[in-house]
């Protein structure tokens, strides 16, 4: 099947749940297992939370959420026009966080990488960030 959606929302924390719901509803079209859907939902939650927490230090900005389905693979992109990630490799290090005083665990990227087949990060200082999560749904036996 082929499908796509494209939306944006204000980067406020209330919309983290909205992003998860939209992702779940979209990916559900591929009839994933409970675990597969849960993994994608969690990864998207991490990416969206990162955008909301880090991208716009001054005031909430716009976060884009888009999805594409091609065959049995879903691609979810989370994007922003915020401050960007100056050192992507450091940001990806497990437990590293740009906000050490805010009880952040620094596990976001680790979770995205573990739960998805591919994680793509395009970002640089002042240029915003685009995170693309790729997940192929196996279509094998499992609880649906």
């Amino acid at each position, binding site marked *: 099947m082929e499908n796509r959606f494209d939306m944006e929302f204000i980067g406020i924390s209330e919309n*983290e749940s909205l992003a*998860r719901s939209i992702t779940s509803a979209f990916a559900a079209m591929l009839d994933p297992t409970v675990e597969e859907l849960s993994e994608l939902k*969690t990864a998207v939650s991490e990416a969206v939370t990162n955008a909301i927490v880090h991208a716009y230090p001054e005031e909430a900005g716009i976060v884009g959420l888009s999805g594409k389905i091609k065959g049995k693979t879903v691609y979810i992109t989370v994007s922003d026009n915020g401050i960007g990630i100056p050192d992507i490799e450091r940001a990806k290090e497990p437990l590293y966080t740009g906000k050490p005083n805010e009880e952040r665990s620094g596990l976001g990227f680790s979770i995205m990488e573990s739960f998805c087949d591919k994680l793509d990060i395009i970002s640089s200082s002042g240029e915003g960030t685009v995170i693309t999560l790729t997940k192929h749904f196996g279509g094998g036996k499992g609880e649906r």
Partner: protein
Amino acid sequence: MSIIKTEKNTLIAEISGELDHHSAAKLRLEIDSAISKETKNIILDLTNLTFMDSSGIGMIMGRYKKIQHNCGKLIIVSPKPQVKRILEMSGLLNIITIEASIRQALKRM
């Protein structure tokens, strides 16, 4: 959503719904305002928690640090599979334990 109560020197928080960056902020304040000098242990009952991401890990870790000075224990009750998976990935299970019920958790205190 959370229900917080105290039993002797143990604070028990029943957390339901989803625990993400948004709900962790409110929950953090609710738990912290219920922690007193006498609070030694914390039990987080996650029986009705349907989702947690790494913001929840940060919140749990922060509460664990708060009871460290009293050599307290933090026990998690009955996490669902998705929640347990995130707990395992975080390494938190090296320092906190899981029990099947609040009653069993209280026995460990």
